């Protein structure tokens, strides 16, 4: 996956002709700079895009420990995968059996976390429409390093059934650093368990450095994201 990314980065800047925009989108008015009157009567100026987000970009976090400790941490990370409870597509319906008696992924240390802050595994469960991609990027950037992305279903790999759709992305690893793909439409719970098992192997081997990959090629990822998301109304790095 990594060298694949680098191959693609080499052929950047992308020479595909950008489709001309027929209309331009106004910035949503809650994002415009304004002065508000607080309940206690004082006037304050607000520029949401500046004030509400942290502007610092991601940095490469090298494991600052000795190998032993890093291995211990990797082992612990592999044993406690906290999935962000964000059903981005129809694949989410097979996550439910995964968490219930028949398959019971809790046995392998896989749990749901409802908030991105505490999750360390983002499962893109199926096709991503542009509207969802925006949210998925925000969720991913709010997660803490190290963090992993699993693409679930054929439609994350090459568009699958929706290869000619005007609203779904075709190749997820152009926009997020994917560690693992699980094929199928839709993948069976057994396939998911197998996939999570392989992900654990990757993490234990210290190969789960997607967050650092994201930080290294940050401009490239952002360029790709902005080419697709036409109304980019958030800062480049919004945690």
């Amino acid at each position, binding site marked *: 996956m990594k060298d694949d990314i680098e191959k693609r980065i080499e052929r950047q800047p992308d020479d595909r002709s950008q489709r001309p925009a027929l209309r331009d989108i106004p910035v949503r008015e809650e994002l415009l700079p304004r002065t508000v009157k607080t309940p206690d009567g004082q006037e304050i100026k607000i520029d949401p895009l500046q004030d509400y987000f942290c502007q610092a970009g991601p940095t490469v*976090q090298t494991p600052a420990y000795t190998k032993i400790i890093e291995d211990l941490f990797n082992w612990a990370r592999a*044993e406690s995968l906290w999935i962000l409870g964000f059903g981005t597509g129809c694949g989410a319906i097979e996550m439910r059996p995964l968490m219930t*008696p028949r398959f019971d992924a*809790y046995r392998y*240390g896989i*749990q749901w976390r409802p908030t991105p802050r*505490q999750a360390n595994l983002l499962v893109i469960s199926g096709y991503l429409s542009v509207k969802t991609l925006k949210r998925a990027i925000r969720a991913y950037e709010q997660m*803490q390093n*190290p963090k992993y992305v699993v693409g679930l279903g054929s439609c994350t790999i090459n568009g699958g059934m929706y290869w000619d759709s005007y609203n779904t992305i075709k190749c997820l690893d152009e926009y997020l650093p994917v560690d693992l793909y699980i094929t199928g439409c839709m993948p069976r719970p057994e396939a998911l368990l197998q996939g999570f098992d392989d992900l654990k192997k990757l993490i234990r081997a210290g190969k789960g450095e997607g967050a650092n990959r994201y930080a290294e090629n940050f401009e490239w990822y952002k360029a790709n994201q902005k080419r697709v998301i036409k109304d980019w109304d958030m800062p480049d790095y919004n945690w």
Partner: protein
Amino acid sequence: MFEWIMIPYSLLTLFIVINYGMLLTALMQKIGARVGRRHGIPIWQNYFDLIKNFGLRTSISHGTMFYLGPVFRLTGGIGLLLFVPTIYGSEMFSNLSFAGDLILALYFVFFGTLGMALGAAESGHPHSAIGISRGLSQVTSAELPFALAVFAVALQYQTLSIPEIVAAQQGGIENWTLFTNPFAVAAAMLSFLGSMMRPPFDVVLAPQEIPIGPPTEYHSSYLALMQTNRAIMPIAKIVVYMNLFFGGAATWPVFFLKVFLIYLFSVFVGVAFPRFRVEQSVRWFLIWAVPLGVVAIVMV
């Protein structure tokens, strides 16, 4: 007269209790999972999560109180534990208990929640804010019957020192407060349900409503601190209940058994019920638990 040997002894208690709490919470999750016909998490899962959260490389702060929130919470747990005798009559494990520690215990039960409220409020997440407002109102109403019960017990035994209360309950099961003052125990156990953050009183964390309440913004090391506290706090709370109402524990096995059973009580209720809305739970405590407490005081 303070003896320095107390300090390593208390730390030993702390160590035992932390590990016991880790395993016990995992075990309770497994029991809950069995009701759902699952096997549930491995018994060591809490350790994995703890190491993982300490091992995360980045963490974001929202200000000083954001740091201090988990610290306060942990202090609440540890303080509560250390100022209450864990093992009755044991030189090693009676910790820093002293006359009047009952009042201090009452204070520590509440302390963590307040610290948490301050910390979570600074994270600025609306879900945190809602969770705090719910949490404080519910904990307050749940504390009320407990306080009443404690006063009843204090009146009953004419002392504010937990060791003396435990001492008064020795010599047979019939001497336990459970039988000498059942109303106080009933009121206290109802409030115990409210303080364990399990259904029907887990509206503070309610994942389907305000994921997941106050700790929404907490991550990596902060979360790890709170997990440690999540292992200590219930045990410490249960120790207080055990000492006040269930005759304390003279040896570790008895301690483990009693703590397990008292904990199990809240779990059994928890798996079988949906959650109250916050105003419903407050009303429930005021209607059912508080009168019991009053009756307990009157009866004494």
